[in-house]
């Protein structure tokens, strides 16, 4: 039985981040793309918390990773609210959330 090391947590985080990136590129639905972005933020949170946990306990700022995750969660919540409002406003104008139909800025 192998021990759980820092690298295991980082590997899970990296895998989830890559999945989120793949989902952003694969999917054509704006809302699903948004959810994949949340997944990437969450993967970054996991690695931050893992780094914070594996710091020496007495070291200066061994909780700073968790503080950072706190801020990331707050900003992500604000960003979801604004982004979903944008999506709803877009849906009112275009009646679609598929990225193929939203090519106004496409060169």
């Amino acid at each position, binding site marked *: 039985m192998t021990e759980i090391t820092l690298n295991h947590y980082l590997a899970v985080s*990296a895998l989830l981040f*890559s999945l989120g990136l793949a*989902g952003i590129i694969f999917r054509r639905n704006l809302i699903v793309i948004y959810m994949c972005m949340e997944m990437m933020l*969450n993967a970054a949170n996991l690695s931050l*918390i893992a780094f914070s946990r594996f710091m020496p306990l007495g070291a200066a700022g061994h909780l700073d990773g968790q503080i950072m*995750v706190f801020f990331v969660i707050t*900003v*992500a919540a*604000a960003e979801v609210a*604004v982004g979903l409002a944008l999506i709803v406003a877009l849906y009112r104008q275009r009646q679609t959330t598929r990225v193929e139909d939203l090519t106004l800025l496409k060169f």
Partner: protein
Amino acid sequence: MIGTGLLVIVNRNPVASALCLVASFVFMAGLFVLLNAFFLAVIQILVYAGAVMVLFLFIIMLLDLKATADRRPNLFSYLFGGVVAVALMALFVQVLGYLPAGEMNAANLPAADGAYDARSLGELLFTKHLLPFLATGVLLLAATAGVVLLSKRGLGSDSTPPETSNPPAAP
């Protein structure tokens, strides 16, 4: 967690995709507990799996999105996305190879009683990181004002400009 994360991107139905993402977040909160981040695990469940995903599901059902098959399979997008994701994963694996893993055992860590609880986190939040904390409050206010402005019906389509001189920028 990885399995549910994979299900998020392969599900055709946005509602099922969102529910898989909720499951993934809950599993992630379990990992946070294993890493002694109890407060953040609770926040993860409450904010992410609770509020944010309810917002997502609300919008999905409000817009009445159907599980639509792709009109054309868009092979280039799949190929490109797969290549980019695999390349990123290879990069991560290479970086992980450089890290010394041996002494980073979870079993070797000292038992940290009370070093990771909400009290120490809060003390740090209100002393060392007070300025970012206050800036977060301003950011939330700006986001709220922005959402209200965006949700106003007829923004930009009618001739009268909104009364506010500078609309708050989306963060």
